C-alpha cells in the first residue's frame, strides 16, 4: 500500500469515527467505546506479549493501579484544571505510576521465562488486587468515585467514545513505531530465541524492561480513563482476570505479534459477543468458548496469520507460473 493511499484511508477512518455516534445511538456507541478500549489494551499487551514473547497473565494489575491512582490523585491533590482537562494530570500520573511499578518489578520478574513469567504476573495481579481491597486507605472494598467531566452537553458515552478512539490510534501509532524500530527488532529476536539474541549483540534485559514498562504505562493510562468512564469502581471492577484474558484472546484470534492482529481479534470477538450473541444471553458464554477453541485450532496463527499464509501461497504459485 503506498503512503498516500494509507493516508487517505486513515483520514476516511477518522471522519467515519467522528460522525458514527450520531447514527448508531447510545447502545452501539458503548459497544464501539468498549471496542476501542479493548483493542487499545490488546495492542499494549501485544508490545510485550506479542513482540517479545513474554505473555503476561496479570496485565489487569495495571488497569486497576491506573484507575485507583487517578482516583486517589484527585482525592488527595484535587482536580487541576477545569472540565475535561482536569483528567489530564491524574491520567498521566496513573501511567507514570504503572510504568514505575513495572520498572521496579521488571528485573526480578523478567528473569523468569515462558509460563513462569505468565504465572508470576498472574500472582502480581492477585497480590496487588488484594492489597488494594484490604488496605483501608485505598478504599478498594467500598469503592471510589472518579467524576467524568464531559464537555458541556455531550453525553458521557460519546465523550468516552472519542477519548478511547484517540487512545486506540495513539497505541496503534506507538506499536507501529516500536515494531519498525531497532527496539522492535530486539524484541522479535528475544521472542525467537533469547540466548541467540544475546550472542548477536542484543541487550535483551534492557529491551525486555523497556517493553514491559511501555506496555504497563499504556495499560495504566487506559485503566485511568476506564475509571473515569465508569465513574465509580471497586477492586473487583478493575482488577479483573477477564481483562487480562481478553487481551491475550483478542491477540491470539487476530494474530499475536502482528501490528493489526489485536485490533482485528478485538473486533471479531466483540462483534460475536456483544452483537451477534447478545440475543442468546443464557448460552452466549458457551458459544463464545467453543468459537475461541475452534478459531485457535483452525487458525493457530490468528486471522492475520492465516491471511498471510494464504497470500504467500498464492504469490508462490504466481511466481512459479511466471517462471
Amino acid at each position, binding site marked *: 500500500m503506498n503512503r498516500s493511499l494509507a493516508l487517505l484511508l486513515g483520514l476516511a477512518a477518522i471522519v467515519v469515527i467522528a460522525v458514527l455516534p450520531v447514527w448508531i445511538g447510545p447502545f452501539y456507541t458503548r459497544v464501539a467505546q468498549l471496542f476501542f478500549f479493548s483493542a487499545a489494551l490488546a495492542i499494549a499487551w501485544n508490545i510485550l506479549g506479542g513482540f517479545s514473547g513474554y505473555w503476561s497473565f496479570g496485565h489487569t494489575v495495571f488497569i486497576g493501579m491506573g484507575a485507583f491512582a487517578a482516583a486517589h490523585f484527585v482525592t488527595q491533590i484535587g482536580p487541576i484544571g477545569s472540565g475535561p482537562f482536569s483528567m489530564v494530570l491524574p491520567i498521566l500520573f496513573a501511567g507514570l505510576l504503572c510504568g514505575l511499578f513495572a520498572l521496579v518489578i521488571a528485573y526480578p520478574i523478567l528473569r523468569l521465562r515462558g509460563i513462569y513469567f505468565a504465572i508470576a504476573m498472574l500472582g502480581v495481579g492477585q497480590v496487588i488486587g488484594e492489597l488494594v481491597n484490604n488496605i483501608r486507605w485505598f478504599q478498594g472494598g467500598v469503592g471510589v468515585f472518579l467524576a467524568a467531566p464531559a464537555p458541556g452537553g455531550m453525553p458521557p458515552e460519546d465523550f468516552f467514545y472519542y477519548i478511547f478512539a484517540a487512545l486506540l490510534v495513539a497505541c496503534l501509532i506507538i506499536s507501529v513505531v516500536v515494531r519498525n524500530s*531497532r527496539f522492535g*527488532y*530486539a524484541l*522479535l*529476536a528475544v521472542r*525467537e*530465541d533469547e*540466548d*541467540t*539474541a*544475546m*550472542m*548477536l*549483540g*542484543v*541487550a*535483551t534485559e534492557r529491551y525486555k524492561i523497556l517493553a514491559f514498562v511501555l506496555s504497563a504505562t499504556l495499560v495504566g493510562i487506559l485503566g485511568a480513563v476506564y475509571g473515569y468512564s465508569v465513574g465509580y469502581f471497586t477492586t473487583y471492577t478493575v482488577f479483573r482476570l477477564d481483562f487480562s484474558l481478553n487481551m491475550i484472546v483478542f491477540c491470539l484470534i487476530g494474530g499475536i*505479534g502482528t501490528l493489526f492482529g489485536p485490533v482485528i481479534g478485538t473486533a471479531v470477538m466483540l462483534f460475536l459477543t456483544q452483537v451477534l450473541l447478545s440475543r442468546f444471553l443464557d448460552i452466549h458464554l458457551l458459544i463464545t468458548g467453543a468459537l475461541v477453541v475452534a478459531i485457535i485450532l483452525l487458525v493457530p496463527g490468528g486471522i492475520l496469520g492465516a491471511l498471510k499464509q494464504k497470500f504467500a501461497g498464492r504469490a508462490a504459485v504466481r511466481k512459479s507460473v511466471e517462471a
Partner: protein
Amino acid sequence: MNEIILSGRGVVKHFAGLTATDNVDFDIPAGSIYGLIGPNGAGKSTLFNLITGYYDLTGGEIRFKGTSLAGIPTYRRNQMGIARAFQISKPFPALTVRENIRVGAIFGRPEKVDHEKVVDEALAITGIADIADRTAEGLTVGTLRKLEIARAIATRPSLLLADEPCAGLNPTETQEMVNCLRNVRGKGITVWLVEHDMKAVTSICDRILVIDAGRKIAEGTPAEVVSNPNVITAYLGAPIEEPAA
C-alpha cells in the same frame, strides 16, 4: 608472529563437583583458523560458553585483544567483536533468512554501517543469497549451518567461535562449509573451530588445541596433533598391554 586476539590463563569451570574446564591456557593468533578438538564431553562447548559469557569462570582469566572479559555481559562481548555460531542451529524461525541476518547487522559491533550492505555481504560469503527471502523455518541442516555463520559474521566480529559447523552435513556440504570458513578468514576474521570431522579440521586449521576431561592435552599443527600419543589415547584409549608369558 601475529598478535594474540584471545588468550586464556588457568581457565577453570566447576559445576558442583564436576570440573568441566581444568586450568586451560590458550593463545589464539589473529587471522588464524584455530581448531579445538576433543572427545565428547571434553569441555569444548563449555570453553566457548565461558568465552561468550554464558557461564562465569570459576577461576583464571580470559582476555580479548588484551582486555579482560570478566564481568562483561554476553551482548557486550559480541559488540566487542566475539561472535558465535551454535552447535545446534538456533535460527529465528518466524523471520526470513535476511531478517535473521539483519538482527546481527543491527545489534553487532556499534559502528555506522549500511545494514543492508552488511547483510548482502554475509549472504554472499556464505552462499545463501538465493534463499534470502525464505523464512528460516524448514531450512535444511546444511543451510541452517550457513545461516548461523552468516548471522554471526553480520555482527562484524574479529573472532568467530564456530561450534561444530559440519555436524550432520554430508561430504559435499562439509566441503562447502570448509570453503565458507576460508571465506570468513579471508575477510580478516579469526576463526576458532570446534569440530569432530578430522578431515575438515586438518584441512583448514593452522593449529589445533586438544582437550580431554577439561584438560589441555596437546597443541600444535594438525600433523603434530594427529600423531601425538596423548591425543590418540584420548580418542582410542590406551593400548592393551600383552600379559607377560
